[in-house]
């Protein structure tokens, strides 16, 4: 597929998908774009916010718009790994153990309130996300394609949470917050019909096959030497900056590159611009950086934005 010629067409399709989702998630266009970017880049999405701001709805809408299977697991403190990945049960008729796939065998998995469950269950999920397969009784079973996990997380200050360690946060390509809707959006929300019904009536805009093609197209987005220089400068300055205990890892750099490409595609370009990097960087970098003890009082997203402001284009 030659992207240069189709870029505008792709953008229109994606914008249409975005608009469709925007009918349900009101006034959150930027968050929708970021979620689409994450999906295009083939990564997994972590949504961190208070209960009731539409995390689940966003995941559900995304699945619907792309015509993907959707399953949801509510993570609780007594959830076991097998409850997610599946279990082998003895079948008396065939006198054999039979594998019963868990809810993870789906195209879009909503892992709701992931930080309410124990680290053991968390790692089972995260491993599956990383490997794209589940191994049980020595047999590896591939997960369907595309496979997209949307995990939601309550702010860890709340009681009864097991915060994900930094190394596992790294498995999520992006972390976004949704936030409260503004006055106008909230008014429309209250006036509107039941969201679940609306979702069920949404058309499928992009089918899974097309989604896979788009994910491939992301790989072909062009980055010039100048842009790579800029990307390197950003990563380097995160490592030199006194605000962070440690800078961005090479994996974080790759993630940033991928997301910038996806963002460029989403906006109908066959090439990445510095603005693309700047747009996605807070969502890609913030959960991978640790604030230095001397700057504990600062907000991490704010620090990332300040970092961007410091690096010349």
């Amino acid at each position: 597929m030659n992207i240069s010629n189709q870029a505008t067409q792709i953008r229109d399709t994606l914008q249409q998908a975005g608009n469709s989702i925007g009918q349900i998630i009101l006034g959150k266009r930027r968050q929708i774009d970021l979620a689409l970017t994450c999906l295009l880049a083939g990564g997994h999405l972590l949504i961190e916010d208070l209960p009731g701001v539409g995390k689940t709805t966003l995941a559900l809408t995304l699945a619907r718009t792309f015509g993907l299977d959707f399953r949801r697991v509510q993570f609780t403190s007594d959830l076991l790994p097998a409850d997610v990945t599946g279990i082998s049960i003895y079948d008396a008729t065939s006198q054999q153990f039979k594998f019963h796939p868990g809810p993870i065998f789906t195209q879009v998995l909503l892992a709701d309130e992931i930080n309410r469950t124990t680290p053991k269950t968390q790692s089972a999920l995260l491993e599956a996300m990383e490997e794209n397969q589940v191994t049980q009784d020595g047999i590896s079973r591939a997960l369907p394609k595309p496979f997209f996990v949307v995990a939601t997380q309550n702010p860890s200050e709340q009681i009864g949470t097991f915060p994900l360690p930094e190394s596992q946060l790294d498995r999520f390509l992006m972390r976004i917050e949704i936030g409260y809707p503004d006055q106008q959006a909230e008014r429309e929300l209250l006036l509107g019909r039941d969201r679940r019904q609306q979702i069920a009536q949404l058309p499928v805009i992009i089918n899974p096959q097309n989604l896979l093609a788009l994910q491939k197209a992301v790989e072909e987005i062009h980055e010039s030497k100048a842009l790579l220089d800029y990307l390197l400068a950003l990563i380097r300055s995160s490592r030199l900056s006194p605000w962070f205990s440690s800078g961005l890892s090479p994996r974080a750099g790759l993630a940033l590159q991928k997301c910038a490409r996806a963002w460029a595609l989403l906006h109908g370009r066959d090439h990445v611009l510095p603005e693309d990097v700047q747009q996605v960087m807070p969502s890609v970098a913030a959960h991978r950086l640790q604030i230095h003890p001397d700057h504990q009082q600062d907000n991490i997203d704010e620090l990332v934005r300040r970092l961007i402001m410091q690096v010349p284009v």
Partner: protein
Amino acid sequence: MNQRLSSISRDPAFWVILPLTLVILPHLPRLPLWMPILMLLLFAVRLGAISEPRLILHKFWLFVIAVLVSIGTIMHYGTIFGKAAGTALLICLLAIKLLESRSTRDYMLLIALSFFIIVTNFLFTQNIPTAVYMLCTVVVLVMSLITLHQGDAALDLRWRLQAAVKLVALSIPLMLVMFVLFPRISGPLWHMPDDAGSGRTGLGETMSPGDIAQLIQSNEVAFRVEFTDNKPSQDQLYWRALVLWYFDGRTWEQGKQNENPRPTLEGHGQPVDYTITLEPHEKNWLFALDMPEQAPPGVHYNNNFLLRSREPINTLYRYSLKSFLNYRIEYQLSRWEKSAGLKIPPDSNPRSVQLGQQWRTQFNHDEAIVNHALQQFNQQDYVYTLQPPPTPGAHPVDAFLFNTRRGFCEHYAGSFTLLMRAAGIPARVVLGYQGGMINPVNQVLSVRQSDAHAWAEVWLPERGWVRVDPTAAIAPQRVERNLDSALAADEIRPLYMQLDNSVLKHLRFYWDAVDNRWKQWVIGYGPKLQQQLMRALFNREIHYSELTFMLMAAVGFVALMIAWLSFKSRAPKETDPVQKLYLQFCDRLAKRGVARNISEGPVDFASRAAQLYPSQQHAIDLITKIYINSRYRSRTSTDQTEKMQSLIRNLNYSPDKS
């Protein structure tokens, strides 16, 4: 603990106290005892004040301390000016200033002052360890500056050290250029400020029993000699410095000098060619091998065959000489010399005088008397020793010759001269050094205080003044080899002789060779050496004004280099023509109110610019599009570049009236 250390190592006060301590440390032994104690107290208070604000002293008390310190300095030194007093006061005031320093500006001032105080070290010593120490301290000072500038965001300690070392290393070429080119003008301008009574060991102007034996205890180098050809044999190395005519029964003195012209010297054989590097000794005499052919330029050569400089030697002094080892001073003894050379103090040492007079009647000519006297010393039970028994009383020569019979060179030279005078032979005492040790590393002969020696000269008809060394008659090893071999085995030797085992000796030779180089080329780099170097470099005389010009040119060149480098690093040279044009475009817009932030991408900037200049939106978008195509899509074509250029040129910058 480590956490705590790192938090202290970020505190600016720590980064002032540490270098300050290093700066003051070498001065401490020179200061009166109360000053180091006071400084320790002040530093402790300031360190305490980092965590305990109650320890911050009020300005009034600082003022009181400053006044007290000034009074204390005057009481100790009698002045607040001069090398020692001035430095001491400055160091104390620095410590007081530290107490009231709180802002970064104060700290910077302290560091700048520290750079100055470091240099004052050179007023006192100029040896290699001092220079190395000072260089290290400068690195710490630079580290302090880096730390103070970086503030909270200070980098890792190791990184700061690296940066400081790099900076100091970068400054070394400039330092060398300035050292070589700075015009050295001979004159009082460059002399060290001199404090009265700075005692140095060395020959005194008089000789009484025990003087030289005491001087022997020091192993300091008096001067170094480089021979052009071969070194003469050890027993010929008589370095003369002083001739003593007058004797009061105990002490020999130079006394009033005669005014006669210098007698002619008749040299035999090939003269010895050599160069002496003289350590400063605060006296005006120069040393020469018996007998110098002529004086170096600017030095007086007197009628006792002694070299005298016009000024006391208080810097390293280098001169070349030619000496005849075989010589004859052919002339008639002047009346003054005859009377001075035969003068015997009345009523002193009667037995010795009587012995001399007895010899006169016993032998019929002078040479026989001299030989007899030396024979007496050799054959009777005279002992050469560093610890001669004291000879108090009115007749010390009698006591030595007839009772104790144990003495050092001054005893033998003095008593011999007195005996000769009593026998009617004009005689005088000569003071100087004898021998010296060749350093096998660089073949330089170093003559130390321990080589101090006294001998005699007698006037013989037909031969003139002849050197006679009575010590050689008693302890020939002293002149043939060295002092150590001439002393009896059970004699208590000075410490340095006891420590002279072979390894240590070898190390000392190496160190001495390095030290010699340092003294000659660094400390001794004066007008003469500078001119020599310039002649070697440019093949002609270089005037001081030319030197100044060259110096300024060199410094200017370095300044330009720094300016260029910093300019270059700030604005990297742009080779991409489109990027150049785009920056030009941004520049023009910046002058008209839309400045691009360094982190602003082209699309964001274009939309911002278009808001201010809606009528130009099309042109701005086009320019941005060409730019993006070139820079972010890697698609450039010449006509696009030209188009961009014309678009930028034709952009209408007058703000839209809306």
